[in-house]
């Protein structure tokens, strides 16, 4: 397995950094007053079932772009759903006017930027990209 991983990164040097097993962090702005969020809360916010943070402020989830490794990890580990399942979940809400999926908003850097500038936005990025502009509220 180790050997396989090794040859994999050797083959795919350009994406080796995303293949390497790393934690993913769910982040909010450093000025957001919530300290930690459990998986259920994060999941409810990203599935449109909760519209506010536990402290009562509005929560606006953003996704990474489709196809990103971090997004797949988030969908599987936190939401417990595959891409197709999520698409089916949202198609049931979109076409009844009952909800819209989080907006795809780019990669680690773009999401971090959005989150840092708006205390209502919640996103997720590779833990290695976390800096002081954002606050980690959940990791997996």
């Amino acid at each position, binding site marked *: 397995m180790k050997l396989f991983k090794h040859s994999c990164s050797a083959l795919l040097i350009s994406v080796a950094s995303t293949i390497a097993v790393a934690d993913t962090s769910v982040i909010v702005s450093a000025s957001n007053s919530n300290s930690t969020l459990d998986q259920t809360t994060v999941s409810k916010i990203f599935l449109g079932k909760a519209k506010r943070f536990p402290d009562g402020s509005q929560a606006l989830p953003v996704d990474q772009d489709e196809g990103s490794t971090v997004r797949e990890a988030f969908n599987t580990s936190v939401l417990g*759903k595959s*891409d197709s399942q999520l*698409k089916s979940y949202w*198609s049931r809400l979109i076409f009844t006017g009952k909800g819209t999926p989080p907006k795809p908003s780019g990669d680690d850097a773009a999401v971090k930027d959005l989150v840092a*500038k708006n205390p209502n936005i919640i996103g997720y990025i590779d833990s290695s990209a976390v800096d002081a502009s954002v606050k980690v509220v959940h990791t997996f």
Partner: protein
Amino acid sequence: MKKLALSACIAASVAAPLTFADDDLRINGFLSVGASMADSNDAHFDGSDNQGGFKNDNVLGLQFSKQINDSTSATGQLVSRGADDYSTEAAWAFVTYAATDDLDVRMGRLRIPFFYYSDFLEVGYAYNWVRPPSEVYRLPFSSVDGIDLTQRFSSGDIDGSVQLYYGRYNGDFKYDGFTYGADFRNFTGITLNTNMGNFGSRLSYHQAELIINDAPAGSPVAGIGTFGPDFQMTGQTTTFVEAALTYDNGTSSMIAEWTQLDYGTAAFLDDTAWLVAYAHRLGDISLHATYSEQKDEYESGANGAIQKAVGLGVEESSIILGMRWDYDSSTALKFEAQYNDETMYAGVDGDSAMLYSVAVDVVF
């Protein structure tokens, strides 16, 4: 192009981070195309027979939505159905006012929440079948003009919603192959949806005062009013109840749905219909099996004899075996085989037949 739009949008959000809320016009759509072939004409299938059906499962839908301000949004959905010769209809056209985080008030043209799948009846991508089983999904109209209230609730692991609506339906009513003019007044109902973990349940009750005009010549119902007051269609209250249970753990999913329709007139037959379906997901492939049945009930005594004599009465069941392949995150390819057994059709003994269907469903 997509990248460009995306970076433009990121740039805009970065420039004005406090107005992040989506205030742009959203356009979503769905498209289903299908073909089917029956092995004989011994049973009746909507829009298909042993010469094939290439139109009935084709549906195109376009939805526009716009957040007007923090609490108000507008949604319109235009649907063009092959089954209606591609005439375009507004399936939804409503304004939503979010009174609180958990209470929505909607006014306009709404989907009647008769069934578990009613809200996304035509979005083939949202379910595994080529089309919902017609034994249960048998009500020939799906939208009402009116107003509704939806209250969502959440407590611990349980969440759900209660929906109340009131309105009127004025339009076509198809029954056993004939189209009648209908005016359904004081149309009202309540729906309770509950989810807990992998389990879900749905209960709903609906009622309306049915006025049927324009019974086409040759239809069983034409002139049926002359048989007496029990056969009038002048505003008698008809009721519909539904109950469904669902389970989905990501790999296995199940639904059982039961419905009962009780007409206030003897001109149409009361009936009961239910289905059970199981699906197993293996990565991008889902295999599913469904049993559904529908049974008309004659009234007792002379009224029942009249109902039978004019040619009313259907009793049928279907077994559906199918496969869905998600070959892209927004496209599904479906194959299915349906065995339809009509124990009774138009008041006399029926027969059985197979229907083979294929469909492609896209959302965008």
